[in-house]
């Protein structure tokens, strides 16, 4: 993962750049050589190189076409139909999208997804960074054990995590309220009040996601050239200034990657919500992915569910594009 990030760094040469650079090298031969056989050979060589490039790319192109672009295209077509997922479907044009615009639960789930994303992404990225900074020191004894503890929740199935969370935050029987009662604090209605229910999801999300963010930041930190930090220290910069002016900017591509990945994870959250809160109370923790599932597989409105899926796709795509542009400008600045 970290080598990909380094490859994307400004100033680095990526594999694709090298490939592109190699193709025009045919040009001088064509231009310099006499017209006739040499020109034809040059052109033939250029075509042959292009074909070779595409033949290497073909498996990837075929894979993406079959498993990504084709399903997206078919999904868009399904979103224009009134379909229960089986039997006869009827073409309804943009009716599903019009229904979506007038559906208050769609807007509520969109708002919930945005709130959940805001509550989970910055916190999980920053906590991941903080833990990575704490555990990066190679002289720290038992650091691998600490790292394993933080990473461990990541390898547990999402459904299992959600079942554990459901029991922990059960407001009648769960340990969260039992603990609060034991220390004489007021108990919280984790399941029947909107904001606490959302917070219970956020806590379980952080528990699972911080480990991944920590590992990626650790990779970023280990790849950082320590001479910059040493130079800053020699120049009299304190720990905070060294972090703020050297470490944080140099981790820019890592942060960019993590923010994009975490936003996608948050927008696509499903198993945790479906199992832990079921979207309740009163749809206050219902998210776009869960709502699409409910529409598609419980209400058998697969055309409408796919329209919600397309909206989710466009939102994530737009966010990634914006983030990409902003990040590129920042790196170039």
């Amino acid at each position, binding site marked *: 993962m970290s080598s990909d990030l380094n490859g994307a760094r400004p100033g680095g040469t990526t594999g694709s750049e090298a490939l592109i650079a190699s193709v025009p090298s045919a040009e001088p031969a064509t231009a310099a050589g006499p017209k006739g056989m040499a020109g034809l050979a040059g052109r033939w060589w250029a075509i042959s190189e292009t074909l070779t490039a595409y*033949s290497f790319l073909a498996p990837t192109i075929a894979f993406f076409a079959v498993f990504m672009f084709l399903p997206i295209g078919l999904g868009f077509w399904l979103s224009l139909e*009134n379909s*229960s*997922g*089986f*039997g*006869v479907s009827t073409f309804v044009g943009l009716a599903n999208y019009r229904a979506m615009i007038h559906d208050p*639960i769609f807007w509520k789930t969109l708002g919930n997804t945005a709130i959940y994303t805001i509550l989970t992404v910055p916190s999980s990225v920053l906590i991941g960074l903080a833990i990575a900074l704490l555990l990066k020191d190679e002289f720290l004894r038992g650091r691998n054990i600490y790292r394993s503890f933080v990473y461990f929740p990541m390898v547990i199935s999402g459904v299992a995590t959600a079942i554990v969370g*459901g029991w922990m935050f*059960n*407001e*009648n*029987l769960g340990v969260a309220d039992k603990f609060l009662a034991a220390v004489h604090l007021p*108990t919280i*209605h984790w*399941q*029947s009040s909107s904001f606490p229910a959302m917070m219970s999801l956020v806590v379980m999300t952080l528990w699972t996601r911080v480990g991944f963010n920590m590992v990626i930041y650790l990779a970023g930190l280990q790849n950082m050239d320590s001479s910059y930090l040493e130079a800053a220290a020699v120049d009299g910069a304190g720990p905070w200034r060294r972090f703020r002016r050297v470490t944080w900017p140099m981790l820019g591509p890592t942060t960019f990657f993590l923010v994009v990945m975490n936003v996608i994870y948050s927008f696509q959250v499903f198993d945790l919500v479906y199992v*832990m*809160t*079921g*979207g*309740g*109370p*009163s*749809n206050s923790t219902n998210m776009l992915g869960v709502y699409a599932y*409910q529409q598609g*597989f*419980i*209400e*058998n*409105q*697969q055309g409408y569910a796919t329209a919600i899926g397309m909206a989710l796709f466009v939102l994530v795509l737009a966010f990634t594009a914006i983030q990409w542009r902003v990040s590129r400008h920042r790196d170039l600045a």
Partner: protein
Amino acid sequence: MNQPRALSRRQFLAASGLAAGALGVAACGGSSAPKSKKSGPATVTFTTWAGAAEATAFKQIVTAFEAANKSIKVNLDIVPYAEMFQGIDAKLQAGDAPDMFRVTYTNLGIYSSKNVLLDMTPYVDSAFISQFQPAYWSAISFKGKPYGVPHQTDTTMLLYNKDMLDAAGVTSVPDTLASTWTWEEFLAVAKKVQAKLPAGHYAFMYDWAQTGAFRWLSWLFEAGGNLLNADLKTPAINSPAGLKAIEFTQSFFTEQLVPKNTSTGNATYPDSLFPAKTIAMAFAADFLLPGDIASAAKFPYAATFQPRDVTVSSDLGGNGIVGTNQSKNPEAAAEFLKFLVSRQSQQTFCEQACELPTRKDLVDATLNWTVRPDLMKMFVQQATVLTPFQVEQVTIPAFGSINTALQNQLDAAFVGGQSASTTAANISSAVSSATAASA
């Protein structure tokens, strides 16, 4: 000694291409080659979800069927409930559906109305149909045609913790349908029990969580109301009876007689709170008995009937087993479906899985249920009060959407502060949209 010759890139690509081409040709040859003609028994696939007790019962029934019908082999395909209907829907769409599958009565309408099920008309006669209680035969029928068999049912009764009721001074609990509590009597008991309970404990809860929202309709039917008019299209819930049922059930929350997290929008079920003594009474379905309730409730408990208002009522839990019209062996599938609901098979299944029969001749029979047969006999009686018209209302093709509306609107009424009149009006309009969309 000869060194192995190094393979150049071109040679490797050429060899790979040849190999791939050869494989392609072989594959084409394979697909066009005549298939060996099938001989031996016809195989039919039956896809179902099943708890441990249900799986054992299904396997036993399949073995008995195959012994009695040597020319048919049944492939029992048990899948997790969570994946059941995504799988069935995808297979129906792909033309690769199993010959038979299990489906809840409340979801059966979406399949029977889409012309994907096996019409059982040629395989059943009036003598066969007359073996079943009319309400359950109606549950598997659409526009007068049967699309499966009514396999079993389940329903809700009120379980109570004897010690907690004794402590509250409630010593007499009805044990017959005729003497069941009225709504007012039940509410008075609940308040009396609640008064004796410490904080964080509640008088009761109802099993209407999530997709169980339809179980609330018992209150509507008890109040003399209906969800739909006789045309099964126009809503009938926005009525005095509808308002009464909503207001009465709303009062469970406003009077704090039930935990706040047991609304229709939560995922809290009675088999966790009742054994933990968080609640003194639980409206719970019979299929919960063999699981956590039997194993974890370490106190004496019993059951009583649902309270009555204008009338007594119940809810339609349970499942039908349907055939699909993609079946290559419809006769064999129909034969197995009929075997599943024969007296012996239904009795075996109900006894082992603690479920209720749909056959008339088993309603009054003595079944040897594995868990609490004394309570199961009462559940059988409770299930008999549902009328065919009430069954028709919860098995229309649009009921999936209506159930979601019930879940959302009742949740808003119970814990969201929404008035009963707005709730009735909103459910009413959701019913109209859903029935119009599925027309």
